[in-house]
């Protein structure tokens, strides 16, 4: 009996070899894919895919193919005709969307990424300004794979801010949440280099507008609690003398308060406490003096508040809610009230205030 068991075991073990074979040299492991609207036919997508190859003289290189098709998978069929290798999606790391396409809505394109089990939910998403294909076809000096470059850049951005929607899962989570809108980082080509260029603001799955990197940084500050960050401001301790100051900070408090004075008079306050060490100050004042420190703290807080309020007004005007004020309003209300509420209209009208409180933990190791 034992002998039979051993035989059965061996047979079963060998049978596993009958599964499909994939020889790595014959695979085109797509590591980045870009989607744009076709210029000729607005119904069509322009899909660019890039994958690493080994050239004839043994060098590690990449190949970028561009085809047009009705959908991601139909374009993939056409991609197959353009290469001698077997296309594989399993190593996909980055997906880029062009501005025009993003304005029409991303859900139809993202569908295939969540439906196809080969593609993980950790594929990074970003926007390409103005077109994704431009970014993927760009040859950067001394930089092999654009996909790897983008992957590292987006991951770095996330680790700095902790509040960007940077992969499929996070994007969809905020997309389907009725109280918050997703944001995606944007990249553009500048002087033959790839450059981070702020974030794209979405309402649902449609891109509304971009924020520049400075405003985006402010947005990150309000969006979620950042454990560690850097803040640079221009302050005027002495009148007429604008000087630069830079803090390395920790956010000790991030809280959004909601008050409803009346049913159609909602007020939200974003309370933020920041404690930071001064790492740079270009002025001549003695920052070790507690009085000057307090003055500087007040100035920075005030500036952050006014900039924050401006940014929020801008967001309210665009009717995008990347901070997630809606989540707090929703949790403040009864279910039926929330469902009956025309949220974006209410959001545009409501009063949102920023209340930041900056404190210096130290003035660094110089007076």
């Amino acid at each position: 009996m034992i002998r039979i068991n051993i035989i059965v075991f061996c047979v079963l073990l060998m049978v596993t070899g009958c599964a499909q074979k994939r020889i790595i040299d014959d695979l085109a492991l797509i590591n980045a894919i870009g989607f744009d609207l076709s210029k000729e036919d607005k119904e069509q997508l322009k899909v660019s895919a890039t994958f690493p190859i080994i050239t004839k003289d043994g060098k590690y290189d990449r190949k970028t193919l561009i085809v047009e098709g009705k959908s991601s998978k139909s374009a993939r069929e056409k991609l197959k005709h353009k290469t001698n290798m077997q296309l594989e999606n399993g190593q996909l790391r980055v997906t880029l969307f062009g501005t025009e396409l993003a304005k029409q809505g991303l859900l139809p394109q993202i569908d295939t990424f969540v439906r196809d089990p080969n593609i993980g939910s950790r594929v990074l998403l970003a926007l390409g300004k103005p077109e994704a294909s431009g970014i993927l076809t760009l040859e950067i000096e001394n930089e092999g794979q654009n996909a790897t470059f983008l992957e590292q850049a987006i991951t770095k951005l996330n680790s700095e801010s902790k509040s960007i929607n940077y992969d499929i899962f996070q994007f969809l989570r905020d997309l389907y949440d009725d109280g918050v809108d997703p944001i995606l980082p944007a990249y553009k080509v500048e002087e033959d280099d790839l450059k981070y260029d702020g974030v794209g603001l979405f309402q649902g799955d449609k891109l509304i507008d971009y924020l520049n990197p400075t405003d985006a940084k402010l947005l990150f500050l309000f969006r979620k609690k950042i454990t560690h960050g850097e803040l640079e401001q221009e302050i005027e301790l002495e009148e007429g003398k604008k000087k630069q100051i830079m803090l390395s900070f920790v956010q000790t408090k991030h809280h959004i308060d909601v008050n409803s004075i009346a049913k159609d008079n909602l007020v939200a306050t974003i309370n933020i406490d920041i404690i930071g060490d001064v790492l740079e100050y270009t002025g001549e004042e003695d920052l070790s003096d507690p009085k000057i420190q307090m003055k500087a703290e007040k100035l920075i807080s005030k500036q952050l508040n006014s900039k924050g309020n401006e940014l929020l007004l801008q967001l309210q005007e665009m009717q995008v809610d990347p901070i997630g004020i809606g989540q707090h309003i929703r949790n403040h209300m009864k279910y039926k009230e929330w469902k009956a509420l025309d949220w974006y209209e209410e959001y545009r009208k409501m009063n949102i205030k920023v209340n930041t409180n900056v404190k210096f933990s130290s003035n660094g190791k110089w007076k």
Partner: protein
Amino acid sequence: MKEKLSPIQVSILVYMIQSGVILFALPRLTGEAFGTNGWISIIIVSMIVNINLVLIWYVFKVADGKSMFELLRYIPKWIRLPLSIFLAVVWLTLGTLVMVKYILLLKLLFYQNVSKLLLMGMGLTLSYLLIKKGLYHIAKSTVVLFYFTVWTVFLILYHLPDFSFIRLTPFIFQGEKDLLRGGLGIYTSLLGYELVILFLHNVEKKRLKAILVGNTITSIIYLGVCFVSYGFFSLDMLLEDMYPVVTLMEYISFPVLERVENLIFSLFGLKVLITTVMYLWASKEVVEQQFQQLKPKYILFGVIFLSFVLSIFPKIMRQVDQWLEYFAWVGVGIAFLLPFLLLMIVLFTKNVKRENAT
């Protein structure tokens, strides 16, 4: 069945029979059935299961150590025969479908080109080897497989940084609901506990505690997974995702390892294996008791063969889901009615005995 089972073995066995493929879809099912914060429903459903378990325990308490088959012998053969065949068929089908469902999922996720029957053959070979040895050995291997798989639960801690209470919302059971059918669906996710009716008389001591602990382990794990899912996904996304727990596993990435769902999903096969093994074993036991003239070896062959043949028919996920749903309903019916029937028999025979004595 000479050796008696220890309470810990029984607890683990109950957990391993209960936890099955439905877990992968469970967070979505709770959302579809109960709306916002549907994870709470697991507590309610688990309580009902506990009541059912107490009922089963009570039967054996008053039956003074008699087994289910000994009790069934009191009813006339023309009722007993169809009842036995009915039980055997339902349990055989449930065991088979659970495995087929797992295999179809495995095919969808990882092995698109591998034949379903090949995987089924592998699963049934393992089942055969286990069932052949009898319940005591199944229980012993279950304990080993339990330690093989139970650690995966702690991977849920990995999702806590992305967990947010604000996504849970303060609304309880609001929005679109499908209480009856959906609720029953959630109930079937805990199904499997009813098999204790076959071996509870054979447990050393602390019978009630053992089975309740088993169900509690399952419920806590289900509750934990669902709770984390509700704060990890937003509700509407949860409702869109066919298998949220697969996505949950997909999201785990270690510094040197990504897409660990490949590993964990395959490990999960061991739990499915025990579920199938126990259902097929139950089916075999019922037939064996009914047709004692047949050799147990042939019965086991027959059960495995029938299970294999049965697995040929459902070819697509839709069919399997539908069959599984219907048969799970029947399973729920059995879970409640069978102990009732046994209780009636016990009380009736006791009365008769008392009357005879007086």
